[in-house]
């Protein structure tokens, strides 16, 4: 590949910016690591350190109930030098992961799948950003930077998802499934992306080759690949931990049953604090089904744009996941610039962006009032997380609306530019 000078520039500046931040403010990473907005029980670097400490001393990392992340992260991090004496290598490792993620975004953007796919061709093709701009939006997003500096392990899930998508749009369906298997292994919820992702692969396959495979067989084949990759990773984890059910219940059981109600930017914690005990299981089921039910509906409605379904689902996950953090939002914000051509059709951008800015500024303040100053209570912070979710929901609904409008304009070229009416 030809080395793009702009790309090198953007990546270099992003790298130097991160390096400057940790050199000028050495306490910044630890501060961010402790923030509830960034670190949740399932991606916290502090908890990873605890697990790592136990792991390197030959104790089960899940003893003590602090560590809830996938066991394969442990040998990876035990290779890095000690974080306390030498934090720079770990930080640089995270910077590189960020750059790799950005590179995957560049690939997704340059494939042009977001604008022109097998069944869909956007009306406003001329309005778009090139790959480097999309990568820049990702790399210079403050949420991404905060996630990277906080060394949250969500970035690995992000990598898995972005690589799954970038492989899918470039036709490597097997690699896409393997990457999705990695992401699902780390965080469970990316498995919900399977259906739209396999549709992206399928459309890509039909576009590139004359011989069209049977749809059902194709889906089953890829499901088998995904399952095999997850099983392989689980088997590796079993080799590491030695106690299968312990790590299954400490990681996936923790994701599914939501026992830790530490505040975060999501909607689950407050709800389950207030919940009657006897209804807890039922509402956990309801919340998970709510999260999962979007997959079918969105995929069916936006069959022509499976890549957009993936982007929207990432937005849905950022709102309705059990342990969301701003890293999930940053992933959604990374996918949105691929749909630059939809921006003119969006109607509430100002309101959505105001709500998101408002909540990201007031959130830490209200959390401080509640926890440290003691002059506020849990409702302060919860109200802010509601505003945050509201902002994201508006953005999500607005982008889905404009995608539909785009499809409709494609079907009815004569109606372009007319007023929209709700019927």
């Amino acid at each position: 590949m030809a080395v793009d000078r702009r790309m090198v520039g953007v990546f270099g500046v992003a790298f130097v910016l991160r390096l400057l931040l940790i050199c000028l403010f050495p306490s910044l990473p630890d501060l961010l690591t402790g923030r509830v907005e960034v670190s949740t029980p399932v991606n916290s670097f502090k908890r990873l350190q605890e697990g790592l400490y136990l792991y390197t001393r030959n104790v089960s990392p899940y003893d003590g109930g602090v560590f809830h992340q996938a066991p394969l992260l442990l040998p990876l991090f035990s290779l890095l030098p000690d974080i306390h004496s030498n934090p720079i290598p770990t930080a640089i490792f995270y910077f590189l992961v960020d750059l790799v993620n950005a590179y995957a975004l560049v690939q997704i953007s340059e494939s042009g799948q977001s604008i022109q796919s097998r069944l869909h061709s956007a009306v406003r093709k001329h309005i778009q950003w090139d790959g480097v701009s999309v990568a820049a939006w990702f790399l210079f997003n403050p949420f991404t930077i905060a996630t990277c500096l906080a060394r949250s392990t969500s970035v690995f899930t992000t990598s898995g998802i972005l690589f799954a998508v970038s492989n899918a749009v470039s036709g490597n369906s097997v690699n896409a499934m393997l990457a999705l298997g990695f992401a699902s292994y780390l965080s469970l919820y990316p498995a919900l992306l399977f259906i739209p992702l396999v549709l992206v692969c399928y459309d890509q396959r039909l576009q590139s080759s004359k011989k069209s495979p049977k749809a059902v067989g194709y889906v089953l084949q890829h499901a088998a690949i995904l399952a095999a990759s997850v099983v392989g990773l689980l088997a590796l984890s079993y080799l590491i931990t030695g106690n299968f059910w312990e790590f299954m219940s400490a990681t996936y059981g923790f994701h599914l049953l939501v026992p830790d109600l530490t505040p975060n930017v999501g909607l689950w914690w407050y709800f389950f604090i207030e919940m009657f005990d006897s209804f807890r299981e039922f509402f956990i089921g309801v919340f998970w089904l709510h999260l999962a039910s979007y997959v079918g509906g969105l995929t069916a409605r936006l069959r022509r744009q499976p890549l957009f379904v993936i982007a929207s689902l990432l937005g849905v996950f950022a709102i309705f996941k059990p342990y969301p953090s701003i890293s999930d939002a940053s992933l959604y914000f990374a996918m949105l610039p691929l749909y630059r051509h939809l921006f003119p059709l969006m109607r509430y951008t100002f309101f959505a962006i105001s709500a998101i800015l408002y909540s990201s500024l007031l959130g830490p303040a209200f959390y401080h009032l509640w926890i440290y100053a003691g002059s506020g209570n849990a409702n302060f912070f919860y109200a802010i997380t509601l505003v945050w979710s509201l902002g994201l929901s508006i953005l999500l609904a607005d982008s889905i609306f404009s995608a539909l409008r785009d499809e409709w304009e494609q079907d009815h070229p004569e109606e372009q530019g007319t007023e929209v009416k709700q019927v």
Partner: protein
Amino acid sequence: MTAKSGDPVSLPAEASTPSKSTQRVPAPESPQAIQTRFRVIAAFWAVIIFLGFPIWWQTTSIYRAHLPIQEMVDWADGKLPESQHLLRTTQHTLDDLNEFAAHHLRLKLTNDTNGSPPRTGNDGVDTSDSTPEHAADIALTVHVRPEEGLVAPRSELQPHTTQLDIFYPPSQIPSPSTSNPPLSIFIAQELQRLYGEEKATIAHILSGEIAGLDSASPELTESISRRLRRSMKYAETYHLSFSLFTPGSAPSSWDIEAAIQEYLAPLLDAFAPISNFTIDTQVQLYATFSPMNPDPIYDEAEAAWTLKKEDLSAFINAAEWPLNPSIGSGPTLNFILYVPDPSQSPMIVKENRASSWIVPQWGGVFLLNPPLAKGQTSNPAYLEQDSLQSAFKTFSHQLLTLLGTPSTPSSLPLRLQTLIRVRAASLLLSASSTMGSLARLTESLPSIPIPANVASSVSTTLSHLSATCSHLREGRFNAALATARVAENEAERSFFEKTMVGQVYFPDEHKVAVYLPLLGPIGVPLVVGLIKEVKRLVAAWKARRV
């Protein structure tokens, strides 16, 4: 919203007449779009039906194990055959109270108005010449001995055994011809006297707070209720905590282990069938009085420092002295040995020169004034076993009182036997009434879950209750107490089952508040979408038929 807002979305646009307004009619929906919408709605409903309903069913269904409600209520009301039989035999023995039968003493446990299952403290009394099968279950052995030079028979109770010696003048040997020989009457009266307090106690427990028991004198009733007020509620295990408090630095150690072995262990062994005990000890130096407590006053006449009786309640510095309210499962009985500072020694209670007192339902205090040699300004650093003797004797008495042992008769084994019977009776009563409460609770709240372990606890309780009754009937009091203990334990466990208690205050109306706020907003669009889609399908089907 436009003029078309009333039209259901699912109707094809051709079906609606062009509106009068200037607005253009939107382009007709393509069949493809209709199919897409059908798929979207189907996708959501598939999740609800195939995943949502099973989860709802699985997570909110209430497991109610079967409970023998009728039997439980019968126990509480004392209507069961076992207890009725018990009642009959009791009545029967009561009826021939005036005849002397060597093998049964009966209780005047008449008119059990509450209908509670009556227990007899029905004491099998063996005369010395009979051969008992169960030595442990013999309540009292009566030795009847002739003694010369007596005018009237006299009795003597051995303080350390369960033996009553009756001496009678040889002239009073009952002849088979007389029906009521004076000696028999005398023995019967003696036995009545011995068991008088027990009878009254059991009657008191059975009748609850109802005063005016016909058989007991008011003084006896008063003393019994006072004793019951002082004593602890029955528990399977009691924790005994022995603490040495001293305001100075000495004594800093005591020969507590030997003292407990020597003075207390025999008593605790004797209590083994009734309760278990765990013991801990502590030494606390520099234990000061609470600031609220008035300082002891030096009394010239007594040559001692005196505490006023009304101030004794503030003697224990509850705020600063580390006296745990409860360690482990059972209630704690605290025994405090207080060694006053040499400058305030000896210390006694002003009114009666006593050096110990009991704190009802809590424990006991003993003031130990170690003998001080002339000019000695400090207490001995180590308390010998011998110097603890008086304290531990007092503690033993206090323990007996706190555990509710009756004050008469004078023989300790007899008192413990009485306690066994009283405890068995009260446990039987309490377990039965717990069963009744549980039955009422489960009947009045159909929405509470009944876990399987509650059902098994209930059946264990019921079987042990009937075993207790039959043991009581046959005079095996130790076995009766053992089964009653099991019954009480299981009854309490089933009644206070955690998963049940949580649901007690959860009426069905609350479910609306649980389901609606979240599921309402989600459900309305889904249901409306489903209805519209079904309408469209029905319309299409009709159109095809026409």
